[in-house]
């Protein structure tokens, strides 16, 4: 009788756990400027390599190099830096506010500011994002008032969502920001539907779908790719690979082979990987994908390779599952510092101006916070009416909800 080997299950593990030395030597990083920039109407099969490389513009010396460089003016870059700094300062203040009990929960963007801030600048007015909870930079970069974001975080009497949503789950149609769901990946396929609708109506607007690396394991991620490729929807399919899905490393969703970007290849969708900590590279790739969508060339999938420096949320403790110094070892650096260095090198920025900008931004954030707190915080001051619980479930309140509202005394 033949001997039959017993099977064993493979469960992927990250290279290093707490107490170990961070090691990113397995992360293959192309030199800045090394990846070619194809024409937007390139056949997807001709750029399969782009799903395995990393598009980078800023090199170690802070220079912008290669075919993806040169799209942004000094002024646009300075605005980009300011937006990222603003998001970082906003995060820091709101994190503190949560620790002070002014809200229940917060999720910060530390280390990922370039992704959403640069991407927003590649879109036009009227385009629609279907974001996750880690793309507040889309609002900041579109000049959505910080005080409105804070009112929502505090669920106070001025909260535009009337206290119904978790903090950071913003909604602004006017700023191209679809209402955030707590259920993962549902928005990914909705973005494709929005883009299909724009095409059905022969409009000129495009949509952007957002997902984290962990959530690519959800069925709706795959549903979205099916619909996007089938109907050639004008949508940009963004995957933010920040290495960690709460405590689960990206290898659990991805498996041991390929990249997240490569998942687009089986669908015939052009797929690119980009340095998510490089403001210029993110913007250039987003612009390329937006032009493809707008020229009716269909969807593009982009994987942003970045690192979640902070905790997943205020309820998370990353020191329990990864080395404390891992973020410092991250080979793609800090997006704010990298853009700052580039601007200094360009001669349009300096340490002094940076320090001054930091102070100005902090003051701006504090002023917004004061204004928001004048309307109340989660447990103190003004809050939305109990009547608001019952409003807006339907366009017109049905009798059974009216009866319940009356029973509640409102």
């Amino acid at each position, binding site marked *: 009788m033949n001997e039959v080997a017993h099977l064993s299950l493979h469960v992927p593990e990250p290279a290093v756990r707490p107490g170990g030395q961070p090691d990113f030597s397995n992360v293959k990083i192309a030199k800045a400027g090394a990846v070619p920039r194809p024409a937007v109407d390139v056949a997807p099969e001709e750029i399969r390599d782009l799903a395995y490389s990393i598009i980078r513009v800023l090199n170690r010396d802070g220079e912008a190099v290669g075919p993806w460089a040169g799209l942004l003016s000094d002024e646009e870059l300075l605005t980009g830096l300011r937006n990222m700094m603003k998001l970082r300062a906003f995060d820091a203040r709101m994190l503190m506010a949560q620790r002070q009990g002014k809200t229940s929960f917060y999720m910060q963007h530390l280390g990922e500011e370039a992704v959403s801030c640069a991407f927003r600048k590649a879109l036009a007015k009227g385009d*629609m994002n*279907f974001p996750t909870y880690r793309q507040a930079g889309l609002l900041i970069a579109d000049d959505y008032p910080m005080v409105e974001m804070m009112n929502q975080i505090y669920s106070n009497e001025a909260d*535009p*969502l*009337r206290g*119904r*949503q978790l903090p950071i*789950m913003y*909604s*602004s*149609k006017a700023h191209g920001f*679809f*209402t955030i*769901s707590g*259920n993962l990946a*549902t928005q*990914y*396929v*909705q*973005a*494709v*539907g*929005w*883009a*299909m*609708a*724009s*095409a*059905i*109506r022969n409009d000129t607007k495009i*949509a952007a779908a957002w997902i984290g690396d962990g959530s690519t394991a959800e*069925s*709706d991620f795959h*549903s*979205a790719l*099916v*619909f996007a490729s*089938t109907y050639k929807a004008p949508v940009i399919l963004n995957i933010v690979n920040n290495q960690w899905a709460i405590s689960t490393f990206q290898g659990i969703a991805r498996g041991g082979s390929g990249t997240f970007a490569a998942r687009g290849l089986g669908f015939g969708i052009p797929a690119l990987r980009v340095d998510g900590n490089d403001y210029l590279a993110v913007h250039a790739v987003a612009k390329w994908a937006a032009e493809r969508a707008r020229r009716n060339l269909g969807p593009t999938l982009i994987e942003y390779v970045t690192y979640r420096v902070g905790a997943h949320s205020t309820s998370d403790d990353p020191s329990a599952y990864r080395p404390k110094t891992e973020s410092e070892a991250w080979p793609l650096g800090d997006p704010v510092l990298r853009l700052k260095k580039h601007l200094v090198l360009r001669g349009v920025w300096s340490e002094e101006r940076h320090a001054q900008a930091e102070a100005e931004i902090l003051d701006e954030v504090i002023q917004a916070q004061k204004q928001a707190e004048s309307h109340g915080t989660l447990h103190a001051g003004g809050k939305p009416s109990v009547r608001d619980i019952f409003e*807006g*479930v*339907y*366009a017109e309140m*049905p*009798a*059974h*909800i009216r009866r319940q509202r009356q029973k509640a005394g409102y």
Partner: protein
Amino acid sequence: MARMTMIEAVRSAMEVSMGRDDEVVVFGEDVGYFGGVFRATQGLQAKYGKTRCFDAPINESGILGTAIGMAAYGLKPCVEIQFADYMYPAYDQITQEAARIRYRSNGDFTCPIVVRMPTGGGIFGGQTHSQSPEALFTHVCGLKVIVPSNPYDAKGLLIAAIEDPDPVMFLEPKRLYNGPFDGHHEKPVTPWSKHELGEVPEGHYTIPIGKAEIRRPGSAVTVVAYGTMVHVALAAAEETGIDAEVIDLRSLLPLDLDTIVQSVKKTGRCVVVHEATLTSGFGGEVVSLVQEHCFYSLEAPVVRVTGWDTPYPHAQEWDYFPGPARVGRALQEVMEG
């Protein structure tokens, strides 16, 4: 006026709506070129073009997810889930997304979609083509849930659903597509062309969502039913000779509580009939409301007649289906109670 089957009435509702409003789009599995497995969408693609009526990949969550995105853009998608049994992969999109978008965004975004799905048994569809999942939707705030029982209502309610600013689950009892069905499976079905409710206006009309209809006035007992069970209840009343008042709910959410309460206060007795399983079924909600609002008028305990708490069997379909004999026994039971 024209004589229509329920499937033709459903098709007519979509055709009229698409003609009146460019924002209405219809899609789902097999609904485009072929016209759907029940032919509900036949001819719509030829008339309105393939960007307004088109085939979708076999991906229910994708169908609902894209419909939600289209609605957020400003379209009014009317999608088909091929059988109600297949809607489970889309349940997350229906219950946590479509139903909540208006509320969670404080009206910033809305979701005017219609989800059509053939429901119920009686066609030897076995356990994966016979389910009645309405209670899974009536538990979800933000949805509206409709189950028509005849061609006239089906058209008027579907047009109202398409024009409704909120998401509507539209469950079509597939056993009624070609004619009223009174539960006597051994007898040939009377076609809708011989039934007064098969007379359907060809143009636009609506029936308000949330209004029940009394199909048979009576004074001895109230029978609350919807969909196929309306016809079974009518047959049971005729066959037992009991003076039953039969209420066709038409809309389960919102529910026409006033019509139920008014009737039960008059008759003092109530039987609730549905095809879905008993435990935690919609009948439990009706019984609870009757108890709450009519307790002092009741002369007997309220009785439910439903499918059994098992999956829908194939070979024993007619032992599962609540037929007129079972409803008749329940009527007699409450009359004696």
